[in-house]
């Protein structure tokens, strides 16, 4: 069970939105993590350095945060097979669908993109059904 934390959620959300704002105003790029990260591995794609720099920021954020506060809990499934299956689906699906929670769910909705609204509605609904089946049908 986790507590409902509306204030820290909205504050953290505002920081995520601010990151998207700055990346757009300064560099004209969409802060969509699957696109930024996935295109690092695209063979014929130039413009890789800024992508690596962004991901380095994501990876170092916990170390920065830990200087000021203890890190919040991170509770994740320990089943390796499940982690691998989920990772494969998330990697393939986000590239095929041109985005994830950040690119579609935040930037795309902020841009009022019909594609992103459709994608967000789809992955939210499918994830909710998946959780229902996994937790309440199979009892994981």
């Amino acid at each position: 069970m986790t507590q409902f934390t509306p204030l820290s959620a909205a504050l953290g959300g505002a920081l995520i939105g601010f990151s998207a704002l700055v990346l757009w105003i300064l560099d004209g790029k969409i802060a969509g993590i699957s696109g930024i990260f996935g295109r690092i591995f695209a063979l014929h794609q130039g413009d890789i350095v800024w992508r690596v720099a962004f991901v380095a920021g994501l990876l170092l954020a916990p170390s920065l945060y830990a200087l000021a506060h203890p890190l919040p809990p991170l509770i994740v499934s320990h089943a390796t097979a499940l982690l691998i299956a989920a990772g494969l689906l998330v990697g393939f699906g986000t590239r095929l669908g041109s985005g994830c929670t950040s690119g579609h769910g935040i930037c795309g909705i902020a841009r009022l993109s019909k594609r992103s609204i459709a994608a967000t509605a789809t992955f939210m609904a499918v994830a909710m059904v998946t959780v229902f089946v996994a937790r309440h049908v199979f009892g994981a």
Partner: protein
Amino acid sequence: MKRILAAFLCGLIFGVGLIVSQMSNPAKVLNFLDLARIPSGHWDPSLAFVMIGAIPVAAIGFALGRRRKAPLLADAFDPPTATRIDAPLVTGAAIFGIGWGLVGFCPGPALTAVGFGSGEAVIFVAAMIAGMLLFQAWTAFSGKKG
């Protein structure tokens, strides 16, 4: 160099936002997606508040961008070009939704969780990279055929 520094700082701010909002914690994400918790009062709607906090701020950025011909550090804005709601978009989103619902990680939080030192996140991200490479191999293959 300025562009690289800007991207690094944006990644850092994004990651701190994920930690502050606790979206780095898959348990919190799954407890949002688990609508069956609503009747018992154990549902955690925090993720919706992350979006409520993020979307208006990002929208200000896109509105400011519309007043300019180009971003401050680059030659041109680089928006997505596709406009149609097509089969790859919906199929990809559905596949992503299954993976997201299984473990509670999407790409940003998974990468940030690697920075927590989570071994589970490392396994997930390695598989996610494999999934992304699989997509590229698949598009390269189908592209040659078509």
